[in-house]
């Protein structure tokens, strides 16, 4: 990667542009999932079909606000896994 490509960018609030919904190959709503993740509402993320997400990263790529969507989803998935193991 060039220096320009790897430069850290500022994250802006979600402007609901909907580009992530267009990009998602499994028809999720990454915008809503991202807002839930930032609010720490992980149970609701599971209700919003977080498990269907395969962490392809398309939403993070297109997000103009540079929100680390798939990175947050990876953390939320790990958290869900842990909760499941503790419950079992």
């Amino acid at each position, binding site marked *: 990667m060039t220096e320009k490509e790897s430069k850290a*960018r500022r994250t*802006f*609030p*979600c402007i609901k*542009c909907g580009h992530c919904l267009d990009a998602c*190959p*499994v028809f999720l*709503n990454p915008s809503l999932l991202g807002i839930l993740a930032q609010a720490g509402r992980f149970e609701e993320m599971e209700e919003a079909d977080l498990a269907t997400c395969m962490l392809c990263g398309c939403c993070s790529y*297109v997000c103009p*606000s540079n929100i680390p969507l798939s990175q947050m989803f990876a953390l939320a998935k790990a958290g869900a896994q842990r909760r499941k193991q503790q419950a079992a």
Partner: protein
Amino acid sequence: MTETPLDGGLMLQLRASPHLKAPDSTPKIMWNVVGSLVPVIAAATWYFGPSALLVIGAATAGAVLTERAFGQRGSLGDGSGAITGILLGLTLPPGVPLWIAFVGGAFGIGFGKLVFGGLGQNIFNPALLGRAFLQAAFPAVMTTWPGAPATVARWSQLRGDNLAFPFTTPSVDAVTGATPLGLMKFESTSTSVTQLMIGDISGSVGETAGILILLCGAYLAARNYLNWRIPVAVFAAVAALSGLLYAVDSARFASPLFALFSGGLMLGAVYMATDMVTSPVTNAGAWIFGIGIGILVVVIRTWGGLPEGVMYAILLMNALVPFINRATQPTPYGSPGRAAKHRARGAEA
């Protein structure tokens, strides 16, 4: 993300994938919208002289200064405050006193955006909320439409009492001329569609040059900086409903082309309704949102007390956006709903 020094002073950045980013960013989108408004502002100055620039400048100053004073630090750089101010200025009559334009910009940003938590959190389009406030607070000033003088003085003469001192009643000594929609509603006279498209008519500062606004919108749509489905749905709904009324009684109702190019419909459909924050995130929702605005515009213009209804139509649909979003959630891959959809499509083929 952390930076880890290795032997030899090499710095490695550790991050989770994806490592590449699309070139678009929120400030880039916002400043592109501002840039696409430059031709519209130029046309406004051509038709309304120095008054246009003064009004747009005052509204922008009100919006930007409020954002600077009460917004989060550095939020001016994303350009959304400037857009609100410019768009508000474009929806004001050219003869409006500058202090009123300034108050409108400050109200739009303060109560339309900052009280909700700044960029991305607001329910209503801030520019239109500012205009709705001005319409309620100064109804006489907001419905006085100075006509364009035909002489050379159009370049030097103000279109009204722009420089009225705050909290005084502006003296109305300018030439006034009704807007095409006002003429249609109260005197049942139509204006030629060519004139409406070019914009050489009485009206708000930036709403008259219909063709130019369409071209600027096409540029934004081509770069995916606005959802083309919203303006297309608005135009289709307005054309269909006003076409139906025109077919029933062509003497009483306006023709569809007149409905499309008169008043603030072009500016509203292309720049206000497509505000990303206050429009639905789903594409299905964008169609519903646009059709709803189109129907409300025709209903308010035809049966309402006001000659123009684009502002209230968009604000009303803004309030419905959370419900539209909820109703049009995408069906995830592998869910029973999508399987049923897939089967239905297979059965058709």
